[in-house]
């Protein structure tokens, strides 16, 4: 039974450099901070970082799965609080879970948690789905 406070199962996605290249092509965001380590370091970043929108796209997949398909996702928002750092040759975790925060007129609001290496990477992450 779905009720306010229900915690949805955690899912772990993995992000690596190859995925950043694929996402750059799929999204059109070719900013070199997401692909070129030398460039990322030159602008003061600790390493190549994932596109915030890739993080959000993966969380979007989690929400779509819960909702029974992307067609049932009505609202989705998040703040990018910390970058997801992707060293060469590594698969970095993106750990996602969510809690039901409201149920009104067949619409379910979710408060979403997204962490990487134990650090919260999205803030104020919320979605509204029809289910």
């Amino acid at each position, binding site marked *: 039974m779905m009720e306010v406070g229900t915690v949805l199962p955690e899912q772990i996605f993995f992000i690596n450099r190859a995925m950043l290249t*694929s996402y750059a092509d*799929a999204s059109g965001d070719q900013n070199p901070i997401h692909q070129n380590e030398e460039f990322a370091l030159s602008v003061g970043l600790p390493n190549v970082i994932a596109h915030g929108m890739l993080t959000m796209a993966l969380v979007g*997949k989690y929400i779509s799965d819960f909702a029974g*398909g*992307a067609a049932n996702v009505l*609202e989705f928002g*998040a703040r990018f609080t910390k970058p997801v750092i992707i060293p060469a040759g590594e698969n970095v975790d993106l750990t996602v879970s969510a809690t039901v925060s409201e149920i009104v007129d067949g619409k379910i609001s979710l408060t979403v948690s997204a962490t990487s290496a134990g650090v919260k990477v999205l803030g*104020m992450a919320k979605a509204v789905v029809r289910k």
Partner: protein
Amino acid sequence: MLNPDSVGRTFAGTDVITIAQSEIDAFCAVIGETDTTIAPPTFSIRITLTQFEEILTQPEIGLDWSRLVHGDQKFEIFSPVKAGDGLTCAATIESYRVAAGNEIVTVRSDLHRDGALVISAWSTLVVRA
């Protein structure tokens, strides 16, 4: 610095952007989505980001894209996007402020199909000091 006079302006995209199945397929493949009949919830960033980069970096608007980070993002989806949809995109500079030397600008992008609103997306962008 962003030209403060541009706040509140709407830039109506006149081009109709037709969504190809291959674009949805590529986006789905990255995130492991097997249902490619509908665009994933954040797919429209592919359209909006390109458009407002062009707008905000015009000399008369003056945003410095090279020091830009994405602060937050929100989507309201009224109707799912599918392959073959012809979409127009209008971008409005909703707000602008400077905090601790950082410029913070929020752009709302409204995507329409045949005159009906399909998606509104808010992007808050931060130009680091």
